[in-house]
């Protein structure tokens, strides 16, 4: 149940009209806050061998948001807290966000920070001890970034590809990539003022059946662009797909890729997003999956875990469900679980192929002088692609499927520039002798089965 609060005075104009402070002023505020930055928390968790846990959380009203953050901190003490932004704000529909905020704040699926303004953001920040991350989905996040930094937030999610393709229909990639280059440059500027902003990339993409090498290839590209623009701390997030060895391998690839493609002085953290696809509906099943995800993050050596709740299948969770999700996930940090291991051979094999696929996808692009143009062209001609794109900028000619063990493989690769060896392995693992079944109805059934994988596994669909 959400705590009831007296409504605050309505917000008359966006951000109450207060001019956003300069980066230097914001950096000064952040240093004066007297709390660790997200980057510092990540570094100290990594040093302590602990996976930092962080909720998704965002509600429309200001008092409700504050209560949500303080409740989560009091009852589950996550290492980092979140401000999830509503989807009007994400799409620069600031007026719609403002109107809904004033008319019916509970109709918002996140906190409209631009409408509330940076001063309210500071109030939230000062109400809790943990640093905050802004999680959103904006192809163009420049306005939101400035407000966020002014509010003292030290972690900001997104990227020119990963916050475009899953989050909008018709924003050209060149535009979003340029807008995110601006954000990244501002991070560089803040670093010069002594404040490191953790820039998390949204490797989760469209979340459903995303092959690891697609997620990591896109993160590599975004990470290279971010580092070139001056970002000093990059979190590479990867969405749990559901197959233990594949997920552990994907996470363990992140430091290898960082070493291969990024300058040595950039901190890189691996982050796991607990299963991002269709969640089981029964509480016990959802909790099994939450714990499983948390264990995967530990086995994969992630620095951070973004949690889900047992209400995931139904809607934005209430605070209590969120607390319980965090607590359950934190069990994976138990000192008593040192005995748990993932099969080393299987993980090594998955890593080898993931790294190879990523290289086949990104090496040709990284060789080009203008990476942004190269990326836009690649999506255009299908040499880069994602499944189930929300945007017309990606073809979604790539079709994933689960193999018999539940790992995510490529059924169709569209125009992805994979070597014959990679294509052959995927074919073999899917057991598609010759051409796969092109009949629509049967493909649809198979895909739906793969999407609902965990509901089937828990026999919820019988």
């Amino acid at each position, binding site marked *: 149940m959400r705590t009831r609060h007296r409504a605050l005075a309505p917000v008359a104009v966006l951000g109450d009209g207060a001019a956003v402070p300069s980066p230097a002023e914001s950096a000064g505020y952040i240093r004066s806050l007297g709390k660790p930055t997200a980057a510092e928390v990540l570094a100290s968790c990594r040093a302590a061998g602990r996976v930092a846990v962080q909720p998704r959380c965002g509600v429309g009203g200001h008092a409700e948001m504050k209560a949500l953050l303080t409740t989560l901190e009091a009852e589950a003490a996550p290492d980092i807290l979140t401000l999830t932004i509503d989807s009007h704000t994400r799409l620069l529909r600031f007026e719609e966000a403002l109107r*809904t905020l004033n008319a019916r704040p509970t109709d918002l699926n996140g906190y409209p920070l631009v409408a509330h303004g940076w001063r309210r953001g500071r109030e939230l920040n000062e109400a809790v001890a943990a640093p905050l991350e802004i999680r959103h989905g904006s192809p163009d996040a420049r306005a939101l970034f400035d407000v966020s930094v002014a509010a003292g937030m030290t972690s900001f999610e997104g990227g020119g590809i990963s916050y475009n393709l899953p989050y909008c*229909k018709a924003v050209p990639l060149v535009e979003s990539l340029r807008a995110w280059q601006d954000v990244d440059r501002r991070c560089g500027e803040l670093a010069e003022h002594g404040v490191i902003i953790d820039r998390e990339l949204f490797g989760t993409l469209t979340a459903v059946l995303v092959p690891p090498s697609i997620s990591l290839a896109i993160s590599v590209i975004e990470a290279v662009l971010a580092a070139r623009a001056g970002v000093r701390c990059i979190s590479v997030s990867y969405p749990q797909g559901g197959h233990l060895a594949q997920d552990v391998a994907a996470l363990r690839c992140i430091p290898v890729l960082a070493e291969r493609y990024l300058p040595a002085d950039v901190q890189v953290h691996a982050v796991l997003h607990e299963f991002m696809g269709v969640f089981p509906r029964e509480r016990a099943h959802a909790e099994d999956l939450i714990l499983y995800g948390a264990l995967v993050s530990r086995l994969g050596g992630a620095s951070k875990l973004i949690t889900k709740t047992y209400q995931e299948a139904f*809607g*934005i969770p209430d605070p209590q*469900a969120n607390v319980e999700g965090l607590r359950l996930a934190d069990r994976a940090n138990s000192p008593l679980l040192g005995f748990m291991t993932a099969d080393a051979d299987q993980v090594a094999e998955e890593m080898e192929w993931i790294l190879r696929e990523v290289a086949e996808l990104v090496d040709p692009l990284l060789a080009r002088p203008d990476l942004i143009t190269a990326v836009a062209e690649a999506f255009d001609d299908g040499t880069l692609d994602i499944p189930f794109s929300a945007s017309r900028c990606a073809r979604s000619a*790539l079709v994933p499927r689960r193999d018999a063990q539940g790992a995510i493989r490529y059924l*169709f690769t569209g125009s992805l520039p994979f070597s014959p060896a990679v294509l052959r392995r995927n074919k073999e693992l899917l057991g598609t002798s010759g051409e796969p079944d092109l009949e629509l109805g049967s493909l649809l059934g198979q895909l739906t089965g793969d999407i609902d994988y965990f509901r089937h596994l828990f026999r919820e669909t019988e």
Partner: protein
Amino acid sequence: MSSTPTQLPGPTATRKVILGVAASDSHAVANHLIALSLRGIGFGVVNLGTCTPVEEFAQACADHPDAEAVIIGSLNGHVHEDLRGLAQAKATGQIPVPVVVGGNLSVGSHKDGTAHDRLYSLGVDHIMADPAGLPALLDELRAARTCSLAAS
């Protein structure tokens, strides 16, 4: 391995629908699958995809006067604000066909009926839970329409 079924045009379509996801909503998976399955049973699907404002649905109605229905998905809880302009678009005849809505129709994990009531008063004609019911509903709608045309 180069062409994929999600890209295949539907077979020569005799019936047509307009499909899309509400304005602030980028959830694409159900949209992809619904398009695939309607095409699979012979519908022509004008899929406007994610993040589609009411005006874009209206424009599609103008471009495709033979469409039988507008089918809108919404998962992110913002359906009411996103369809704010629907009442007017229907009143002015810009959207002259039945509007079917489905998905996750309010914010939060505890649902009650008010979200549906609010949608009906915005001009939504049908609210569906399971897309598997769409073909039967479309048949019904066509039957009703033929009747009322015959009667008028």
